[in-house]
């Protein structure tokens, strides 16, 4: 890549942008003024509203028939005391107001309360009803103490209109005053009845908050930081991205650019850098802008907020957000490349932004930890990681995993945007290529990744939200039904020949021996991988217990075998070693095919701690199908592997050694390699450049 070329292209993009007054005004200057202005106006109107609420006179009426209710005097006392202090607790937190006291004025009780409230002749209507005979209060009770043990005042009923501002406020003031005086009256009654101590001294409760102010603020900031950064980056980046390819296409400058000596990689890199530069600059501008406004006391930070990020954490966050920034810029560039016009690009940015914002908002959800399947979800994983960093928790292996996952997704998207730039439909009227037109089997290799990505997203949402709450048998049945249905849909949609797509062929005889040898050896290796992975990611005890529970503890053996061995062996093999392998085999080399199809299988197990061993199993099964040319040995291996894993968990006789020696693994590796060698068809060459 030529640095001079990239620099020239970036400078060109930025120069064009800087010379576009509309963009500068509407996309840069206006937000700089509008955001703080909106913030300022919101707080100003809130303040004004509060003042208005507190300074007005509210009207109330007491129902005429209230006087005849038993204990009415008690209720009246309660109301009078409440009216004497109303407004002192003008705010919900009980802090006394500094503004003018709230005034309540009694008016005649109307005949039609609802109509009077509706016409605002009355803001709140007070009535009281008897709570029961035993609640009757002695008329001779001391009005000052309202103390008559065992007796209760009538129930006070407030009627108001929640949809009318004044009525709603009046009810709020009066209710809070009544609640405060009720506590006071209760305490007096308790004292009069001989209760020895103040009620608050009984079963006292004290809270000690051990989190530092920085940690509390860190949690608050960490929940929102990713969403704020993503929003700012998208807002800033989309300014350039719209113009980057869609705008150039519309202007006719794209073909000019594509016929220069700049390579596609240089052009995509330059476009990405331009988007990133503008996104970064606008984000920094916005942040600085808000800080300046805060310094000018025109807007206030949230109460108790200590906006301090240590330098180390700041640098780590910067590093952490780098792949997210590339991911976002590549997404925008991809959308821009796929759009024919500037307007179309703007239209298509909306769903991209919605998805990105939804994912970036995940750290707001309570209970989401980085050490979970969320580490596999790009951007969301960095958001949760940022939240943990800001509260002082550094889970290094998981931070690295989150960074790698989002980085990988960013690389894939960057590659996709590069491909878009090489696509001929970018400058020709032709929308299709040969496989588009042919459809069916010719198109399937280009669509298979999309199908499995959608399937993965579906399973992720399903398992994270519903899966954990249902019977494990039902969970497996639904998962398998999803795999089976997806495989059937793909075969039907793309008219794939089932025998070819699913490798429904007789395997070489030696393959069965390979299965008998490979499945137990592979299980031991998978166990080794789990132990190795647990060095970086210690497996929590709770997870092991949950796994044992999920693996059908208490189920009869035959059910265990059906749900945990046979069903996965059938449906997962059809989906992964059948259609997935068939779709990918002409697009990847054999090594790529083994790794991609194998690890994809691992990722479908969603649970973080199951990904390494299931990826290894996936790799063995892919090799099995490639070498034997048949899906049947893979099904048998899968079934035997799962049965042995269950057996090891449930039966003493076949339990894996507690602490296997290193030579156990060496032997297992040798046995697995031998097993895979036995899969080879006699009439098939051992190695080929392309898979399948």
């Amino acid at each position, binding site marked *: 890549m030529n640095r001079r070329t990239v620099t020239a292209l970036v400078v060109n993009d930025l120069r*064009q942008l800087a010379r576009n007054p509309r963009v500068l005004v509407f996309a840069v200057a206006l937000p700089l003024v509008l955001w703080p202005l909106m913030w300022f106006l919101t707080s100003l109107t809130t303040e004004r509203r509060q003042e208005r609420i507190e300074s007005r006179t509210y009207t109330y009426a007491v129902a005429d028939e209230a006087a005849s209710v038993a204990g009415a005097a008690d209720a009246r006392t309660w109301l009078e005391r409440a009216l004497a202090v109303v407004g002192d607790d003008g705010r919900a937190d009980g802090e006394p107001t500094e503004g003018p006291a709230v005034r309540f004025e009694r008016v005649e009780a109307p005949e039609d309360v609802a109509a009077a409230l509706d016409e605002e002749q009355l803001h709140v209507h007070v009535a009281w009803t008897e709570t029961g005979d035993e609640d009757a209060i002695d008329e001779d009770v001391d009005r000052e103490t309202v103390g008559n043990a065992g007796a209760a005042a009538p129930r006070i009923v407030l009627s108001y209109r929640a949809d009318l501002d004044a009525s709603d406020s009046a009810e709020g003031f009066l209710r809070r005053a009544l609640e405060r005086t009720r506590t006071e009256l209760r305490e007096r009654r308790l004292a009069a009845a001989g209760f020895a101590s103040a009620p608050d001294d009984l079963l006292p409760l004290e809270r000690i908050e051990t989190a530092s102010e920085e940690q509390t603020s860190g949690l608050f900031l960490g929940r929102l930081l990713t969403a704020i950064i993503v929003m700012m980056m998208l807002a800033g980046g989309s300014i350039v991205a719209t113009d980057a390819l869609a705008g150039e296409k519309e202007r*006719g400058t794209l073909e*000019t*650019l594509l*016929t220069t*000596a*700049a390579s596609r990689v240089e052009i995509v890199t330059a476009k990405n850098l331009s988007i990133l530069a503008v996104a970064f600059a606008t984000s920094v501008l916005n942040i600085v802008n808000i800080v300046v406004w805060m310094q000018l006391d025109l807007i206030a930070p949230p109460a108790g907020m200590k906006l301090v990020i240590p330098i180390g954490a700041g640098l780590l966050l910067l590093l952490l957000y780098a792949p997210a920034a590339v991911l976002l810029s590549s997404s925008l560039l991809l959308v821009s490349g796929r759009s024919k016009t500037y307007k179309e690009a703007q239209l298509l940015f909306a769903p991209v932004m919605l998805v990105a914002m939804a994912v970036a908002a995940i750290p707001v959800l309570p209970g989401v930890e980085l050490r979970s399947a969320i580490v596999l979800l790009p951007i969301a994983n960095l958001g949760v990681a940022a939240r943990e960093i800001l509260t002082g928790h550094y889970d290094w292996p998981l931070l690295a995993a989150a960074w790698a996952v989002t980085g990988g997704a960013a690389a894939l998207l960057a590659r996709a945007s590069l491909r878009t730039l090489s696509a001929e439909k970018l*400058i020709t009227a*032709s929308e*299709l290529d040969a496989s588009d037109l042919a459809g069916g089997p010719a198109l399937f290799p280009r669509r298979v990744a999309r199908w499995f990505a959608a399937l993965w997203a579906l399973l992720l949402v399903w398992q994270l939200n519903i899966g954990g709450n249902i019977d494990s048998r039902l969970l497996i049945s639904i998962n398998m039904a999803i795999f089976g249905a997806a495989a059937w849909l793909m075969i039907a949609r793309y008219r794939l020949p089932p025998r070819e797509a699913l490798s429904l062929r007789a395997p070489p005889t030696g393959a069965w021996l390979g299965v008998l040898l490979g499945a137990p050896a592979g299980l031991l290796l998978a166990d080794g991988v789990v132990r190795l992975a647990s060095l970086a990611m210690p497996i929590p005890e709770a997870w092991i217990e949950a796994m044992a529970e999920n693996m059908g503890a208490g189920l009869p053996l035959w059910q265990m075998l059906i749900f945990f061995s046979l069903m996965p062996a059938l449906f997962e093999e059809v989906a992964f070693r059948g259609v997935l392998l068939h779709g990918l085999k002409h697009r990847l080399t054999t090594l790529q095919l083994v790794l991609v199809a194998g690890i994809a299988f691992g990722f479908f197990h969603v649970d973080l701690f199951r990904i390494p061993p299931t990826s290894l199993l996936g790799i063995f099964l892919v090799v099995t199908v490639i070498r034997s040319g048949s899906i049947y040995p893979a099904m048998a291996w899968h079934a035997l592997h799962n049965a042995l894993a269950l057996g090891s968990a449930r039966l003493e006789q076949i339990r894996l050694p507690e602490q296997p020696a290193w030579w156990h693994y060496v032997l297992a590796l040798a046995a697995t390699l031998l097993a895979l060698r036995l899969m080879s068809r006699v009439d098939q060459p051992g190695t080929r450049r392309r898979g399948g």
Partner: protein
Amino acid sequence: MSTVQVEVQDLSKNFFDQSRGEVRAVQEVNFECRSSEIFGLLGANGAGKTTTLRMISTVLQPTAGTARVLGHDVVSDPVEVRRNLGFYSASTALYPRLTARETLTLFARVNKYPAERTRSRVEEMIERFGLGDYAGARIEKLSSGMKQKVSIARTVVHDPPVLIFDEPTVGLDVLNALDLQKAIQELREDGKAILFSTHIMSEAERLCDRIAIIDKGRIRACDDLEGLRAATSQHYLEDIFVHYVTGNDTTG
């Protein structure tokens, strides 16, 4: 002595369209273009001229066949092909908010022209194409004629040995078209190998050293004007074109 700069062998391109199915836009096209030569591709709209030139400029990938520019293959070595190429067409626009000088500097840089000579080369182009008074003005403020001059200057600013002009006079008035033709002739004098596509007979007749008549993606004839006249017994290029495209003799 002129040398072969562009070689095209059995070049084909198919497009795929939902309504028309597979469209064979270019079929087994063969020709070569030498230095100090203007090689014309003469054809009606949709004949395959632009598709052929876009394949040579590496914007489109051939379905079959090969094309080489100074020995560099358009598929395996596209960057080197483009480095030695200047592409001009009615659809290749300029950045409206750049000045003429900035435009030339940008294209010199992206075409990997030596950094130390970029400034002097840009000034040379400004002088050669008479852009001096307007070099600091933004493209969007220039007249069509001036824009066209900037376009030619940006096509040749990196001094490529091969130039492609794809229907360059479309949309230009007569005077601007003549100016452009003059500029192309001067570039031939500079030793450039020039591929020139047009559907205007007079233009081809005036400019081209050799002409390939292209129809429905195939080259029907390829020779200099005298050779075409001799082969068809027609004098006017228009009649020669009709002869090859329709197979009819238009003379009385």
